[in-house]
């Protein structure tokens, strides 16, 4: 059953260029149905979680490719499968202005299946395998427009990702040697008797694997692929580089820390301090670069870099509350950022304007898009009543609870970043709605809101941002259960 949800999107994607569709709308319907069907199947799986592991292939010893549904997997798979139908709908409208749609949708839909493979992986080897596949299947998406910029960006992405995966591979090997199993077990699988006094070696390997997976999670100094990937069509940047790819990196780090190495082994060591300092730096660095950046999508890309490190900050606190904070921000940031990117995409689609200073006064001409952008800006800043406040609250509570002075400093980093976020997001909003009394509105004559295929996802996301902001307790309770190990099998 599990394998179905992974295979369906891959097969559907492959069929897109093979089948001959009489009208474009037939292709749209085919794809959307496939994606929605798959999402429904995923949710069915999550709600009726069976504790069986599905073994796909067996290599030597106890190395295998297998899948299972546990708490963490539920969180990520739930997120991805909820967002994908909307993203596909949005992409249909967006891609009317681009070429080579069929190839695009081939890889776009295959990515869905592969991301699910990452989330439902039962052991480190499977996750690593799908992680590499994810890189391979998303490179053509980054390269889609085939401009020189796009080709360079996709090359950079490829090299960074493969390089990162190589470091992560070393981590995998160490787990195989020093762990009892490669399976994901909350609390870690390391066999302390085998390690003996080689603790420092293992800590070093942990930091390397963290940075390796951290490439995809855009940790400093391996983050420069992400802003460059902003050259891809917006559905790619939005879904992949705000949700699927980068969150896979964060997800992998959570698995590595809590389920493979185990926090009892890592907490209080120099490794924890090192990774915590690295992510704290990234939090502030990402936001600072975002303030200076004038290209809208690149600005949002830097914002993503910073916010991913919020999630990783929660992970590096290495307590159950830290995991709760990390998971909260994983979900909430994904929704907020995909909403922001889709607004940016709508603006580009309708007006071809890509730079922040070209957006003056557009607030009145595209009120829906800019209204939704304002909501996501406020949510990203952490205004109470919207989702971002709750995730920041959970992260900060975890940091305060931990008693770790470095973590206290981390809270300060979070708040500095909140201020910088306000600066780089609200200046866009203020310019759009308050362009100044000398502004010539005649320049914006043909600007209007996009059609329903783009607006519907935006409205749905905004609804969830507000709903999560006001009523997040059930989700937080669920995360607390996941962190306490209630959903491991």
């Amino acid at each position, binding site marked *: 059953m599990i394998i179905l949800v992974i295979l369906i999107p891959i097969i559907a994607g492959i069929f897109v260029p093979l089948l001959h569709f009489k009208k474009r709308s037939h292709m749209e319907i085919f794809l959307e149905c496939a994606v929605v069907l798959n999402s429904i199947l995923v949710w069915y799986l999550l709600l009726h979680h069976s504790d069986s592991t599905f073994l796909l292939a067996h290599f030597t010893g106890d190395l295998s490719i297998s899948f299972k549904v546990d708490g963490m997997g539920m969180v990520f798979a739930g997120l991805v499968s909820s967002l994908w139908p909307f993203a596909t709908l949005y992409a249909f409208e967006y891609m009317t202005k681009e070429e080579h749609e069929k190839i695009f949708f081939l890889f776009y839909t295959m990515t869905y299946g592969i991301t699910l493979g990452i989330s439902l992986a039962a052991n480190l080897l499977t996750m690593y395998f799908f992680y590499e596949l994810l890189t391979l299947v998303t490179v053509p998406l980054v390269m889609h427009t085939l401009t020189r910029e796009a080709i360079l960006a996709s090359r950079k992405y490829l090299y960074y990702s493969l390089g990162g995966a190589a470091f992560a591979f070393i981590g995998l090997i160490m787990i195989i040697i020093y762990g009892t199993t490669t399976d994901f077990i909350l609390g870690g699988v390391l066999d302390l008797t085998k390690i003996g006094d080689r603790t420092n070696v293992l800590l070093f390997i942990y930091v390397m694997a963290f940075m390796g997976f951290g490439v995809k999670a855009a940790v400093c100094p391996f983050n420069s692929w992400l802003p460059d990937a902003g050259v891809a069509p917006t559905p790619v940047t939005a879904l992949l580089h705000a949700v699927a790819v980068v969150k896979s990196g964060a997800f992998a780090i959570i698995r590595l820390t809590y389920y493979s190495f185990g926090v009892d082994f890592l907490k209080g060591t120099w490794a924890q301090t090192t990774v915590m300092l690295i992510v704290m730096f990234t939090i502030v660095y990402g936001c600072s670069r975002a303030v200076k950046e004038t290209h809208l999508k690149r600005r949002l890309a830097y914002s993503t870099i910073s916010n991913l490190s919020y999630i990783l900050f929660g992970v590096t606190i290495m307590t159950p509350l830290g995991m709760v904070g990390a998971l909260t921000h994983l979900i909430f940031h994904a929704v907020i950022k995909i909403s922001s990117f889709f607004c940016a995409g709508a603006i580009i689609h309708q007006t071809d304007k890509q730079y922040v200073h070209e957006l003056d006064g557009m607030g009145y001409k595209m009120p829906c898009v800019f209204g939704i952008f304002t909501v996501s800006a406020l949510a990203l800043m952490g*205004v109470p009543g919207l989702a971002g406040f709750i995730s920041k609250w959970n992260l900060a509570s975890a940091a305060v609870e931990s008693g770790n002075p470095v973590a206290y400093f981390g809270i300060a980093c979070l708040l500095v970043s909140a*201020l910088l976020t306000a600066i780089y997001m609200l200046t866009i909003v203020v310019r759009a709605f*308050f362009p100044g*009394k000398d502004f010539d509105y005649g320049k914006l004559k043909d600007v209007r809101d996009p059609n329903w295929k783009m607006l519907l996802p935006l409205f749905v996301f905004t609804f969830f941002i507000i709903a999560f902001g006001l009523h997040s*307790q059930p989700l937080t309770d669920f995360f607390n259960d996941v962190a306490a190990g209630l959903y491991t099998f």
Partner: protein
Amino acid sequence: MYLILLSIFFPIVVGVGFLIVSSDKETGKTISDTCYSSNLEDRGAVESNKQARNHLLLATGTAYLLTGILVIAAIIAARDEDFILFYLTKALPICFRIDEIGVLFSVMTLIVYVCAGFFSFEYMKHETKEKRYYGFYLIVFGVLNALCFAGNLITFYLFFEMLTLTSMPLVLHNGSHKSIMAGLKYLFYSLCGAYMALFGIYFIWKNSDTLTFTAGGVLNASAGSQSGILLIAAFVMLLGFGVKAGMFPMHAWLPTAHPVAPAPASAVLSAVIVKGGVLAIVRTVYYIYGTSFLRGTWVQTAWLILTLITVFMGSMLAYREPVLKKRLAYSTVSQLSYILFGLAMMTTSSVTGGLLHVLAHGFIKATLFLVAGAIIYTTGKTRVDELRGIGKEMPLTLWCYTIVSLGLIGIPPTGGFISKWYLAIGSLNSGIPVFCWLGPVILLVSALLTAGYLLPLTIQGFLPGADYDYTHLRKREPSLWMTVPILIMTILSVLIGLFPGVIVDWIMEVVTI
């Protein structure tokens, strides 16, 4: 309980309604421009514009008065009732409670807001996009009420952030590049302050059982062991809320924002919105941390130093400032730190003086800004040195200015004198080593400087000198819409000084040290 909700959300809903309902006759011209134009099209538009404008003003005025009635009704009917609106998370309720501090702040807000609101009916003829102004003005009114009635720290913080976001459009209203930059400066300074306060809130949350405002503080037993980080958090919170309250070192947004905002907005900004920062500090120090935790610590000392620096610095900068509204802005910076000084001293008399000064300064500063607005509206002049002889042209207005200036300086029988008296007594009785006498000294010096920066306008205005050209004088008293609010607030500030007993006794009861 519904009265509380209504007093908060009614003006917000009406304001939002103003913003959403678009008018199709928005031109870039002001009412005064079109009135004097000879263009036939404009003439036709003038009549329908006038009608539309009258409808707008009627709706706005009614909204003010209704909100005022709702606030008073809520105060009378819903005192001391804890009302939880909903739970943001299981442990963070959004709740409201009207206690005495809330009554004090909300009554002052009400009076100043309504007066400045009616003043703006006349003043805004001189600006465009009035509907947007009144929309945000009403929204801020609702948010201010929510702030006064907030029952716990989370509710307070939520509306504190809302206050910043919704009052920024008032600052940048006239749309010039300068005002947009000033609006953004205000926004980012205030957000910086809010985030600094949030830092403190996270730590309080760990060390308390509840965030509900309780006299004497809510820290629990574990706070003793955490006192190091908690004191740092307290200091950061004071600095953060102090941004809004114009305390050094983050006061710089005030002198930038006030000159560019429309005068009634400046009045409200100085008299009421910054008091939101003061209210925040009152709540934090007296109702969350509790004086027993903070008294005698380095936090109190540092706070006292900062407030005294601000008092002196604000007055000095005001003394040297030639633009009238900027001068009044520096004056606000200084005067707010009088209040903060009283709060920092943590004795009954000093806190009484501080809270009384909240009331007195609110009325006085609002009057001062409205007078400045009246002057700008009738003469277009913004600098003090251009205003010789203005007293002959606008006698009533300048008389009101003079009376409230005396109040700010601290001359009996005005309200400002009483509050300064209590501040000084409280300081001298406090027993804190250097500050008990340093405080009154600086307050006196600042009073001198206050006379120096406020009275020249009066003197030059009424007695322009032998070499002044009296033939240029015109009778320029502004209309009733402007003079009546000014008069009302002047009278109130004097009444507080003449009959302080009731209010002082009431405040002293509230202040439990």
